[in-house]
């Protein structure tokens, strides 16, 4: 017996091959600030990472980061109030910030909650055995780029992970 792998990427019969589009949108999700909806986002992000051929450990790290970031939006930006809008945009990146060819997943979270206090964003020392304060730590440990910003009255959190670590890894100070 001889093994031949026939895996290839192919377009569907009768489907014209992808034309170059301005953005490489994978999917955009709109949800309400309801903890029950987190499992939907985790599933979507998991599949998006599979599409980009991330390893299992990387997939879990990305899913965890998005989930923790959304939990923070619900608990902190929206102070636990449900029914408020959150948007998650997943894009495929083909170049890093220096224009070098890469495969990356960019995830942009947007909410209209209270703007965050950058001083609180460092996470905490883990030596202290107490509940809470782990979410940001997970995110900073897992993602290659993490940027909080406030634009057009919205909080934005942009996270990027590359399939192979990029040359330029932006980590917050103190990590």
């Amino acid at each position, binding site marked *: 017996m001889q093994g031949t792998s026939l895996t290839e990427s192919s377009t569907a*019969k009768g489907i014209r091959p992808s034309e170059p589009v301005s953005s490489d949108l994978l999917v955009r999700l709109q949800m309400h600030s309801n903890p029950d909806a987190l499992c939907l986002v985790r599933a979507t992000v998991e599949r998006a990472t599979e599409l980009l051929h991330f390893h299992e450990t990387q997939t879990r790290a990305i899913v965890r980061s998005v989930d923790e970031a959304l939990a923070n939006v619900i608990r902190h930006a929206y102070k636990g109030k449900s029914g408020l809008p959150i948007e998650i945009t997943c894009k495929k990146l083909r170049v890093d910030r220096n224009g070098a060819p890469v495969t990356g997943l960019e995830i942009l979270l947007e909410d209209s909650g209270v703007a965050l206090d950058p001083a609180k964003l460092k996470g905490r020392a883990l030596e202290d055995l107490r509940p809470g304060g782990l979410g940001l730590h997970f995110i900073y440990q897992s993602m290659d780029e993490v940027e909080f910003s406030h634009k057009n009255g919205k909080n934005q959190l942009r996270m990027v992970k590359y399939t192979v670590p990029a040359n330029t890894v932006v980590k917050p100070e103190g990590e």
Partner: protein
Amino acid sequence: MQIAARASDGFTIFDISGDIDLAHSPQMRKALLGEIKEKRIPRVYLNMKNVRYIDSSGIASLVEGLKASRDAGTRLILYSLNNSVREVMQLSRLQKIFEIFDDEAQALAS
């Protein structure tokens, strides 16, 4: 979807895994028709054990394969279908049209 071929004397086994959907059924179709129409392999087996999902375009590709094998006087044999794939076969009323076996041993012995 991933598709790998195990070729032997007189037959080929395709081990398929993942989702046979609009994005991937053309790849399966190409593999099937290559083995049936071009190489005229007497028996082509599809191991569906790790197929998580199949859509109507996947079913259409299987039907094309079946027709090609009838034309060529060869056999197309499916085995290890999970519930999801079985349901789609039933919805399409195709479970009696295809040769379907429970596992590889039964399929190879058939």
